[in-house]
């Protein structure tokens, strides 16, 4: 078994109203960052886990996302997994 670090990014589905993103967008505008045209707020989870291969770890992470980490009604997720430094 090898130690991996999974990184899961969960974002509100494109097209769905993201009030947090809008609030940050307006605040950045108020601070003078006038080149900002859109902000969306999601979350990133770092999940340390053991597995036999990167492929197997990705499949486990996908299962975690589908069962708990993301809600398929409103969120999309992307998975990244790298072998952990020893």
């Amino acid at each position, binding site marked *: 078994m090898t130690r991996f670090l999974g990184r899961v990014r969960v974002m509100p589905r494109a097209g*769905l*109203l993201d*009030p*947090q993103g809008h*609030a940050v967008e307006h605040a950045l505008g108020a601070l003078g960052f006038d080149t900002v045209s859109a902000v969306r707020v999601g979350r990133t989870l770092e999940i340390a886990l053991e597995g036999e291969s990167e492929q197997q770890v990705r499949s486990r992470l996908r299962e975690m996302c589908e069962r*708990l*980490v993301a*809600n398929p*009604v*409103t969120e999309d997720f992307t998975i990244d997994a790298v072998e952990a430094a020893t």
Partner: protein
Amino acid sequence: MKVAIVRFPGSNCDADALNAARAAGHEADYVWHRSTHLGGADVVILPGGFSYGDHLRPGAIARFSPVMSAVVAHAKAGGPLIGICNGFQILCEAHLLPGQLVRNAGLAFVCRPVTIRVESDATPFTARYTVGREVRMPVAHGDGRYVADEATLDRLEREHRVVFRYVGGNPNGSMRDIAGICSDEGNVVGIMPHPERAVEAILGSTDGTPLFAFAPVTAGVS
């Protein structure tokens, strides 16, 4: 009837739900979320609050509590089950009801009385209301905006499963002004406003009282 009020860590409307059920003449008791049975309850209430601190998403952790297997079995057997506020969020996360409740469009936590219209009397929780009746009761939530894809929303409307709708102002940006829905069998209901806080004149409204009659469905959708 025998009523179980499920308490999760972070539930905070459990005592109000117990009070409302007992005031309606039922034998009501709490069931801790670690319990694997519901004590022979005829009716189950998932009360409002902030189960597990709303971590990850409201209701996302609570839906895996040990008691939820018994709650799902109760629902699948046709038993009356209602989720109020956080309870509604848990029912959606548990896939007992479609859709999801997300952050209010205005971001602010909204805590005030609202008016909702009863859209269906074909549930055990609305059989004592007349369809079209407008009732007053408070909302108190930060994540009450009901969302679902268009096909799901159309199906809910077609099957008369929108049970309550906000009128005269939508407090959270809920799609199609939805304040409450039910399962395809009608025995599982989710409602965002708080009927248990509207059962005594001193609370400002008694419009929630008929909901706690848990009356059998008679006429169907009128």
